[in-house]
Each structure stands twice: as C-alpha cells, then as structure tokens.
C-alpha cells in the first residue's frame, strides 16, 4: 500500500517537474501558463491577501447547498422509489437518459424564474447531482440481503425504522459513492454556471481573469478548486475504505 502511494506521489511530482521544465524552457509560453512554482506563489498570495474571500465563500456555500440538497433529496427519493416498484419502473427511462440532457441549456430559463442571484447556480448543481444519488441509492438498496429485512421484521421494526437502522446503513458504501458523485456534480454545476453567466463567484472570477490575461488570479483559483475537490473526495474515499475494510471488503 505504501509503495502504491509512493508511486502515486512520484507520478504527480514527475508531471509537475515536467511542466515546470517545459514552462521554464519556453515550450509553453508565459501567457498560456506560468510555471507551477509561480502558480504556487500566486496561490499563497491569493490566500494571504484575502481579496477573493467573498467570492470563494459564496461559491463554496453554493456548492455545499447544491451538494446537500441533491444528497438529501436523492437518498429520500431513492428510498421511496425502492418501496414503490411501479413508480420506479415508470421513472427508469428518465434516469437512463437523464445525463443526455444538457442541463446548462436551461440556465437562461432558471435566471428568468429565479433571477440573477445564486438560485440558478445551486439549482444546476442540484439537478446534475440528484439523479446520480437516486440511482446509486437504488443500486445499494437492491443489494440488501432479504434476510436482513426479515431480521428487522422479526425485531418488530416499522418500514421507516428498517430503512434508518438496516437498509441505509447496509448501503453506506453506496451512499458514500453517491456523495462523491453529488460533490463532483455540485462543483461542476456551480462553478460552471458562474463561469457562463453569473456576475460573482469563483467561476465568474476565473472567466474574468481569463478575458483579462490575469494568470496570477486565474491559475491560483483553478488550483484552489482542484485542491478542494481532491481533498473532499479524498476524505470520502478514505471513509469508504474504512467502511469496506470493516466489512471485510477491500
């Protein structure tokens, strides 16, 4: 395991060194991309000066709101659909084709409905994530052994108690996968829609910096999004591994 981790770090370090060399040698010009060490310095400056704290806070709050609502609604909907086979079968074609729908195309409509505030960004993040959570929850619930449900019945538990204490805990690894998907989609939805049409937020700042050749702002912001996404996903993956190890699955 340690050796694999070492390989992973080596690959990342190697790619960074290669990028650094290409930038310093002029193979990648400075206007396109500054060398990684320059991005790191600008990143630290960005955090120290705090000039974009408001935008960063706003985007993160929207990401968390989109993630939380998609996760909660997705799990509840998945659990309810699992209990009603006919409704599930009716909605199955929608779930199967859902990701062929370009949700971003509805952004102007959402602005008309919700105005220019944070609502449209959060809604897009929510819409992108919610079906992934529903489908993953259903997938987990389908795998709950019948004997565990029978055990809950023998313990005289109601369907709600069975869901809370038996079926959903059994699905915990699936629910963590759902969380990872919802988080990724929340980032994509919120930052993407800020980038396209919003007047504030990290996505907007990246777009603004891009049109003004302001690499000292654009790359540190991209790096920040990358780091936040990796850290949050890393925490969820670690948690997932702990759960699976406890169950004898690796």
């Amino acid at each position, binding site marked *: 395991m340690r050796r694999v981790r070492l390989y992973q770090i080596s690959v990342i370090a190697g790619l960074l060194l290669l990028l650094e060399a290409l930038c310093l040698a002029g193979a990648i010009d400075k206007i396109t991309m500054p060398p990684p060490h320059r991005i790191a310095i600008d990143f630290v400056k960005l955090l120290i000066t705090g000039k974009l704290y408001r935008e960063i806070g706003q985007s993160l709050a929207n990401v968390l709101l989109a993630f939380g609502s998609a996760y909660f609604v997705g799990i509840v909907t998945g659990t309810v659909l699992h209990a009603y086979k006919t409704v599930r079968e009716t909605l199955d074609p929608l779930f199967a084709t859902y990701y062929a729908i370009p949700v971003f195309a509805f952004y102007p409509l959402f602005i008309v409905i919700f105005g220019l505030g944070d609502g449209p960004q959060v809604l897009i993040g929510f819409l992108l994530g919610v079906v992934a959570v529903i489908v993953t929850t259903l997938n987990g619930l389908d795998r709950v052994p019948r004997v565990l449900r029978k055990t809950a019945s023998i313990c*005289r538990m109601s369907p709600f108690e069975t869901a809370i204490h038996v079926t959903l805990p059994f699905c915990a690894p699936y629910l963590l996968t759902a969380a990872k998907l919802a988080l990724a989609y929340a980032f994509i939805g919120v930052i993407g829609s800020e980038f396209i049409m919003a007047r504030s937020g990290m996505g907007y700042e990246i777009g603004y910096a891009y049109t003004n050749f302001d690499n000292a702002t654009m790359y540190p912001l991209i790096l920040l999004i990358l780091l936040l996404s990796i850290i949050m996903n890393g925490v969820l993956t670690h948690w997932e591994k702990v759960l699976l190890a406890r169950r004898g699955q690796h």
Partner: protein
Amino acid sequence: MSSAHVALRGVTKTFPAGAGGHAVHAVGPVDFSIRQGEFFAVVGPSGCGKSTLLELIAGLTPATEGQIEFEGRVIENEIPDGIGVVFQEDACFPWLSVRENVEFGLRKATLGPEEKARRVHDAIAMMGLGEFARSYPAQLSGGMRQRVCIARTLVAKPRLLLLDEPFGALDQQTRLLMGDEVLRLWREIGATVFLITHALDEAAMLADRIAVMSARPGTVIDMVETHWPRERDSRIVERENFGAMTSRLWKTLREESMKTMGRASAAP
C-alpha cells in the same frame, strides 16, 4: 410439556402467479401443534415448503387459508411478540460489532440501560463470544457469525425459537458442536424450539418430535416421537435406536425426495 404453544389448523400457502407464470401451492393443508417447551423439528425434501412453514409461524408471510395460533392468539398480519428466528443465511449486520449486533435484538425492548447491558453481556458470554465483543462479523468464522445471530435472538428471551437450517452452512464437526450448544440453550432458556433441517441425523439428535413433510405442496406425512431424555447431547448418536430413528425418517422421505427429483420409485 403439555399445552399447545403453537397450533396450525388447515394452514395452506399459495404464492400468486408472477408475470407469465402460474400460482404455486407451496404448503398444506397442514395441521399440528407444538407443546410448550418442546423441541420440534421438521424434515422434508428440498422445496417442500419447510422454510415457508417457518415464515408462516413467524408471521413473516400470511397463510392463504387456515389459522396459526401462538400462545392462544391467532397470528394475523404482524410478528407476534416473544418469537425469535435464526436464519440459515448470514444475518449479521456487517457494519455493527458483535456487541452492537446482539444489542440490536433489544432495540424495541422496554428495558433500562443496565438491564440491557447485562442481558447483552450474558448472551455474548453464553455463546462464548466474550473476547470478540468488539470484533466485526467480517473478522469472525461462519460458525461464530451464526453464534452472534443466535445471541441476538436469545438476548430478547423469546418464548418460541424458530431455527431455519441454522447450521446449514457449517461443517459436520461444527454442526454437532452447535447442536450441543442449542440443546444446552434450550434447557437453559426453557423456550419452545421449532427447527427446520434437511439433515435427518440432526433432527433425530436434537428433537423431541419430528414432522416429516411430503414433496410440494408440503403436508405432514409422518410424526416421529424420539423419546430422548431432556438431558442429552450429540453422544446420543451412539445409541442403538438412533440408527433405527434415522432409518425410519429416511424410509418415509426417500419416496418424497425422488418425487422432487422427478424420478419414479425404485425397486424395494
């Protein structure tokens, strides 16, 4: 061992037709009663409805016709209080430790925390799992996991213990030892035990009375009284009449098992 603890009267179970299929008459009509404190076993060919019969008594599935009574009350649309079930499949909750799994059996019990803790401790100790209380099921052997399930059932002090081929997944030596454990527990807790098994020697060793079921739809075609003393263990297999007991069971079952396999009766 006198009054009827469980009584089945004209019980049948038919599963409705699925898509493109036809209805399946799984069990019945079945009539028998189980005495208070009795160790009662049911044997029968594969697919004869043994497990369905257990689920009917447990209240997990409703009877199509007939009536089942437990302690004089008809079982209708709900799991009766005082019933515990140990299933053949691994029913441990993999995300809970041994202690938490056993505690689960008391989730609906209206006991104080001290009494709950005492009962959990006793049940774990009774099943010899004391040093594994903090382990997770994945860290235990199949036999130990089955003991966790038995402890979780016993902690609620059921008055009727239903065992659905609980040793089916275990090797022969472990099965014999687990059989001894079950007999010891049966004497200690004084519950009525209803055991489903496909192993004739297991039924003959453990039970006071054995119902032999026909091929589907399962009905009771023979009722065998063993007359074993209450104080018994797996060494009962050494008795002269143990062989005669299993022979009788097999004689009755052979024809039914062949029906299940789609074969006609073979010569003598």
